[in-house]
């Protein structure tokens, strides 16, 4: 009896010792691996969508097409408004102007199937479908079906140390009276990302859009302010208007690998790569 009891006690001691060692190992591991960041609710999570919020001043759900009645210089980021460029950006701009002078095309990366990115998809003659939820606005440009999301659920921009930088950047919006104010940053530093007309974009690009719905809900007015300390001084401003389109749904648009084989202009000698 006594011998049997001793064996049970010894076994229990071994078990306790094993558990203690295991717990110590787990504690050591948890110290070595930082805890993952807390994941906020997705913009499409029902629990997020159903949260109590003030009603949005307007709903821009619909299909929109840029008002190009002012002509090309009215909707491109035109020369009249280009700020003082930094030297490297000025070199690109000069090369762009020289190419025009020679009847050539400078760095038409979009034509080579690189993403247009923001702000170009917000300034071109391709429709954009917008779907507004309480938590976010989903924008899908028909131009290569590029997707842009403007988060409205109160989140901040992603930590720069973990954000994945993109051509469309990361957009966070808030309501100020009858205006939706959208701040977009965390852009890629890819050399194929352009603002417009020979002016490059960098990872320092930051865009503020002040969006109003006017003309009885038939027009969006988007006042844009761009800053990019790597490429120009101060602010670059422009206003675009988008008209509601009720008889068109956007379609699938792809820059397929063989597309340019049949569009000789994209491989023409007029291009300056």
């Amino acid at each position, binding site marked *: 009896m006594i011998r049997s009891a001793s064996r049970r006690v010894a076994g229990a001691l071994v078990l306790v010792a094993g558990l203690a060692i295991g717990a110590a190992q787990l504690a050591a591991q948890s110290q070595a691996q930082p805890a993952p960041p807390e994941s906020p609710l997705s913009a499409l999570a029902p629990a997020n969508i159903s949260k109590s919020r003030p009603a949005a001043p307007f709903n821009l759900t619909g299909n929109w097409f840029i008002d190009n009645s002012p002509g090309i210089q009215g909707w491109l980021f035109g020369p009249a408004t280009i700020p003082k460029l930094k030297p490297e950006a000025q070199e690109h701009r000069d090369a762009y102007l020289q190419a025009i002078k020679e009847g050539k095309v400078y760095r038409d990366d979009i*034509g080579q199937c690189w993403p247009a990115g923001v702000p170009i998809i917000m300034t071109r003659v391709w429709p954009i479908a917008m779907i507004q939820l309480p938590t976010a606005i989903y924008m899908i440009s028909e131009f290569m079906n590029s997707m842009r999301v403007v988060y409205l659920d109160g989140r901040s921009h992603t930590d720069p140390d973990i954000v994945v930088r993109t051509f469309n950047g990361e957009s966070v919006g808030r309501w100020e009276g009858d205006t939706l104010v959208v701040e977009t940053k965390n852009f890629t530093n890819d050399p194929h990302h352009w603002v417009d007309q020979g002016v490059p974009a960098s990872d320092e690009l930051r865009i503020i859009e002040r969006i109003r719905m006017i003309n009885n809900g038939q027009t969006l007015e988007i006042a844009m302010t761009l800053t990019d300390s790597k490429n120009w001084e101060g602010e670059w401003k422009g206003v675009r208007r988008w008209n509601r*389109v009720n008889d068109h749904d956007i379609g699938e648009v792809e*820059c397929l690998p063989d597309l340019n084989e*049949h569009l000789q*202009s994209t491989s023409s000698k007029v291009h300056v790569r």
Partner: protein
Amino acid sequence: MKSVLFGAVAVALACAVPVLAHHSPAAFDRSKEVKLVGTVKDFRWQNPHTWIEVLVPDEKGKEVLWGVELTSPTYLIRAGWKSNTIKPGDKVTVVVNPVRSGEPAGIFRSLTLADGRVLTERPARLGTPDSK
């Protein structure tokens, strides 16, 4: 049949309304028009560009393959086009603004079919009163 080149036809730049495209329009000389009289080799109805390949005899009778770039079917449908408007073998006359380099390629201006019908990329444009 042969191609006819109209040098420096006064095409007002104001007429060069931007259309749906995935590349810069600067490659094309909007001040010139080239009239291509030839035979359709291929016609592709697709986004972001519809395109036509036309075989056009040059001055010596040698056939030259011209590439013609059109806008998206989004616009073309509104201008009366269908995916079967033309097919390989059709005799057509196509007017283009050529690329500045002189290569056999251009951006579309108009198409005249064998029965005399003329098609363009106009008139209806998105977001305008004639487009609801």
